[in-house]
């Protein structure tokens, strides 16, 4: 690792450290949001849908797949402000402790996972998520819908496709 890279990592780590102690429940960020750079283009939503579609092809995902694919990231907007928000994978996730059925859990890598099989669509997680990052999936059996950090990708689709660096992936262990 070059010295410059190390320095960058150090800065990121210091930033994380500050965030760690400043914030709600001491969560460590996985995807960092910088709203100043968000231009509200919603490409994050588009690519989230593609990633979570059956075909993983943008045209099929939008034109053919039924029921329509849902995005797990949402851009909160009140012009001129736009803020992309998805599951923060909190260190002490309120959704995990509130879940009535054990459908939400935190795995050994810190990823907050949701198991639709066990979900009963009671929306208790929506009630407690401080970021408003969980939504309803009522396309079939009612279940919650949230970011899974794109398990089959190295970098989540929303981050990789953000054209302006509003989303940055910081692997936090």
């Amino acid at each position, binding site marked *: 690792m070059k010295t410059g890279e190390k320095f960058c990592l150090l800065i990121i780590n210091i930033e994380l450290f500050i*965030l760690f102690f*400043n*914030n*709600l429940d001491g*969560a460590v*960020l996985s995807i*960092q*949001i*910088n*709203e*100043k750079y968000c231009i509200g283009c919603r490409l994050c939503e588009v690519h989230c849908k593609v990633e979570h579609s059956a075909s993983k092809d943008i045209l099929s995902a939008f034109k053919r797949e039924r029921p329509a694919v849902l995005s797990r990231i*949402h851009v*909160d*907007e*009140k012009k001129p*402000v*736009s*803020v992309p*928000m998805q599951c*923060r994978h909190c260190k002490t996730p*309120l959704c995990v*402790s*509130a879940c*009535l*059925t*054990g459908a939400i859990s935190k795995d050994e890598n810190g990823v907050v996972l949701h198991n639709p099989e*066990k979900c*009963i*669509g*009671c*929306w*208790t997680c*929506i*009630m*407690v*998520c*401080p*970021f*408003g990052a*969980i*939504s*309803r999936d009522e396309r079939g059996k*009612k279940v919650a819908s949230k970011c899974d950090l794109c398990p089959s990708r190295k970098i989540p689709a929303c981050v990789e496709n953000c054209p302006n660096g509003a989303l940055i992936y910081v692997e936090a262990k």
Partner: protein
Amino acid sequence: MKCKYLIIGNSAGAIGAVEAIRKVDSNGSITLVSDESNHVYSRPMISHYVRDIATFDEMLYRPKSFYDDQNVNTLFGKKVVKLQIDEWKAVLDDGQEIEHKSLLLATGGKPIIPKIKGLDKNGVHSFTTISDAKAIRERVEQPATKKAVVLGGGLIGLLAAEALLSRMINVTVVELSDRLLGPVLDPTASTIMARKVEQSGLTVITGHTISEVLGVDEICGVMLDDGRKIDCELLILGVGVTPNTQLALDSDLKVNRGIIVNKRMETTTPSVYACGDCAEPYDFAYDSFRPTPIWPAAYRSGAVAGSNMAGLESEYDNGTCMNSMDIFDFPVISVGRFNPGEDEGCDILYRLDEAQSVYRKVVLNKNRIIGAILAGEIEKAGIILSLMKNKVDASEFKEALNHKDFGLAYLPVAIRNKMFRVKKD
């Protein structure tokens, strides 16, 4: 038998405690005693069992290997009959004694059984445990069962009614107060819910109760307090639950409605803790200690108790009563003090769209949110709860709280930055 941690109970609070203890102390011996003889399950899912859309295995709250993974010694189907707190001994119904160093009462709630004549007849059930659900499902599957009466129009009663309706049973709900879901909704939200309930085909009778259960051995109907008779082959008592405090009372722990605890979930006796439905945890919206019989509060308060038992100081200080439901396809969330008295000088902001069945209400006191109802539109409810927990001055953005698209973008950038970890530069 000896152990370091003794936990009485096996539901959300007990599991919260086990998981919290293990985060701090990976070896300390944990013994868990429960009068139910099964693996921990999601109690709210008993309605799914009655509906026959979930098997018991699908209701498990934690994987089958949970107790082994967490190294917990379980004594299922056993009841603690006596606590000798001075000697740190618990006596089981089979005479066995368990010595321990700290104790957690996670004994939960027990169904309220109203004083009604004839409750001993076959076909009368409460709606709290898996054994209730099994008995009800068995009854429902008998061809003779065509009509049911549910006593109680609260959350328990309506969940039971909804499950029975889905099994093609004709259901009448009898509720003593003048509206449905009294404790968890305000009158406006209750009215919308009542409309949804009626559309579903359920019959609701408010302002009355049952005075007698009719039948010889088997129930054949109920008589209401005004003399009206309703035929039924099944009666469900869904009036509510009350803290199960018998063991605490017998052991001279201080008990109000529930077992009295401090913010550390410790009872009036050091190293004896209580959590969940049997206790009276702190409620930040009321700034007082009161029963909070909801699953998330049981888990969180259990986790706080477990953490303190294992030596890591922790406080249960940001819980309040909150309910989320989706009954009869109508999602509703209510949190905190959503229905304050008129003399409290609260600022009430609401938006009602009857045609769309949307109702949102936020209650503020000195510009701090103290309660909210979101009916029909529930997205972002958690942001409102978070602003409430953090006692954020909402004067700048309170008008936006009931907006359809309300979200982080409506908040001042400083709040977004500080509370929601959104960087501004």
